[in-house]
């Protein structure tokens, strides 16, 4: 990945994580590098088990006991997070790096009033009085759009709906104004209309609080309106990364093609969505060469032999596929992808200006407030 150390808030370099299990060592993260700039949103996309959550949990030192860091660095404020003690990590967690979890129905303590739960990080980190913390919690509760916050601050989690609970989880994460917010599939457990509201809220709050977001999802559709850049993960590796436009309109890796093709868009005409055939490889014993080769209709001979390095597409866009090697034969991507790439060519008019297409790709862009809870 291209480096510009002064701007990078977080820099992950060659991260490798194994899990010790009864069956053997699961190589969950196999040499992952990425960076996060101040104020941007980076989406990490991939299917279940690709290592998205493990990667981000290691940023907070929250991986399970059987996780073993096999190599790499995670630089945050010029220090390697992986070398920090548990005590030092506790200072960072919730204050500098905060996290939103997937399932709002289970991530709040059922026996504690929500006000107290929101105020808790403030009391731990900023050493403010309980009264002051509660006052700030109330402000935050209003900010995340809970109506009648003055009364509801004394309610328990079960008195809220799923969408409201996720707003509370967001309030907890943002109460200390963290520099980095990790959102681990924050909308997966919610129904679609609520999903859009939560995404919109996150975007609004990102501006107010000036935080950078790492957004983990398996749903490319959710990402389009949210992220600045996208990293696509497969089998414990990043296979392609670039800006949102680059990934959506000029994808290079066959896995990214598969992901885009399995996502419904307004253009989807046929009644069927295509799926990527096969299942991800067993990370107990990762295959030699390109891990995606077995499921890849465009696989080359070399894919079975040697792992592809990152090929540069543009300054911000890299993809790890042998198809980009100058010696590789040119392949025609699936029809829908070819269409996207044609649109990409059109977007880049003669003077190099970027023109966004008229039809939005996702639902998060066209929201209205009327369907708020």
């Amino acid at each position, binding site marked *: 990945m291209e480096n510009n150390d002064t701007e990078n808030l977080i820099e992950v370099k060659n991260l490798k994580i194994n899990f010790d299990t009864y069956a053997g060592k699961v190589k969950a993260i196999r040499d992952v590098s990425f960076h996060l700039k101040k104020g941007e949103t980076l989406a990490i996309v991939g299917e279940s088990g690709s290592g998205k959550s493990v990667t981000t949990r290691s940023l907070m030192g929250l991986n399970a006991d059987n996780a073993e860091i096999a190599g790499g660095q995670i630089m945050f404020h010029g220090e390697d997070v992986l070398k920090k003690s548990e005590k030092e990590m506790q200072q960072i967690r919730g204050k500098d790096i905060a996290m939103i979890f997937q399932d709002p129905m289970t991530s*709040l303590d059922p026996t504690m009033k929500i006000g107290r739960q929101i105020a808790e990080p403030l009391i731990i980190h900023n050493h403010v009085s309980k009264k002051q913390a509660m006052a700030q919690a109330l402000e935050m509760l209003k900010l995340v759009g809970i109506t009648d916050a003055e009364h509801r601050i004394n309610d328990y989690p079960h008195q809220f709906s799923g969408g409201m609970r996720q707003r509370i989880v967001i309030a907890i994460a943002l109460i200390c104004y963290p520099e980095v917010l990790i959102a681990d599939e924050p909308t997966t457990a919610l129904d679609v209309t609520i999903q859009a509201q939560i995404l919109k809220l996150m975007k609004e709050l990102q501006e107010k609080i000036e935080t950078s977001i790492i957004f983990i999802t398996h749903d490319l559709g959710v990402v389009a309106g949210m992220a600045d850049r996208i990293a696509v993960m497969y089998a414990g590796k990043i296979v392609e990364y670039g800006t949102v436009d680059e990934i959506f309109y000029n994808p290079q890796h066959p896995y990214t093609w598969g992901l885009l093709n399995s996502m419904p868009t307004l253009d989807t005409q046929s009644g069927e969505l295509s799926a990527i055939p096969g299942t991800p490889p067993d990370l107990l014993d990762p295959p030699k060469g390109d891990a995606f080769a077995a499921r890849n209709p465009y696989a080359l001979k070399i894919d079975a032999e040697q792992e592809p390095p990152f090929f540069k597409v543009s300054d911000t866009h890299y993809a790890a596929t042998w198809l980009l090697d100058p010696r590789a034969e040119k392949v025609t991507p699936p029809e829908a992808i070819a269409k996207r790439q044609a649109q990409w060519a059109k977007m880049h008019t003669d003077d190099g200006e970027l023109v966004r297409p008229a039809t939005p790709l996702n639902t998060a862009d066209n929201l209205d407030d009327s369907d708020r809870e």
Partner: protein
Amino acid sequence: MAKYLLKRLFYLILTLFLIATITFFMMKLLPGTPLSNESKLSHTQIQMIYHTYGLDKPVWQQYLIYLAGMVRGNFGLSFQFDNQPVSYLLATRMPASFQLGIQAMIVGVLLGIIVGGIAAIRRNTWVDGTMTVISILMISIPSFVLAILLQYYIGLKAGAFPVAGWGNFSYTILPTIALAGSPFATTARFIRTEMVDVMSSDYIELAKAKGLTSTGVVYHHALRNSLIPLITLIGPLTVNLMTGSLVVENIFAVPGIGEQFVKSITTNDYPTIMGITMMYSVLLVVVLLITDIVYGIVDPRIRLQGGRS
């Protein structure tokens, strides 16, 4: 809530009535009579005594008379213990049993919470293993065996506490330990399981992500959530304690109800048997009722639903 309480109260009275009825007739099926051991009495004397106590009437009449008396709070006179009213006997004997029961409950449950909690936090280490073995031993060893072991090793050999009898606080220590074994082990096992479950829940991960220390996580989030279900255990624990105390009090010669209960059964002292049975039953159903109410108070989820219905 009022409707719920009224319903519970009705069932409570029904339960007590059934217990009284069943115990009464089962008791009458016991072999022997209150006077089987009095060989010096002549037949006429026995008949006279029977007449005084109403024992010459048909059983169903005795039953009705007994019920009528019980409703008015009159449990009759004891045959065995100097003709004292049973209610008086209970009143003098209750304090010792109560003191032992409450001491054993507090010691057992508190220790159980601490030990179970530590075992959960140090899961799958030697600490956890040792605690599991201890609690399994405590569950398996009957309290009367534990009582005798304590008497022999701590009372007699070490001479640390009185072997038996009743006097100052030191007399209560061995019987308390003997009785506390079972609630301790049950609580420890229960809390360990609950805590392990709670510790793997999402809200504990969120608490860690907030930057809480591990003690903070346990103290503020895990403990409360694992303690609430413990309330449901208090009912069964009380039953265990009651049955345990019947024998343990005898072993330690504690002048409590348990000791008297055993004696009254062996001598067919009908009013005393009934009186003690009923007292234990009332205690138990009331404990169960209180448990349910308390559960509603501590668990916000139940509290709200109770309030709405």
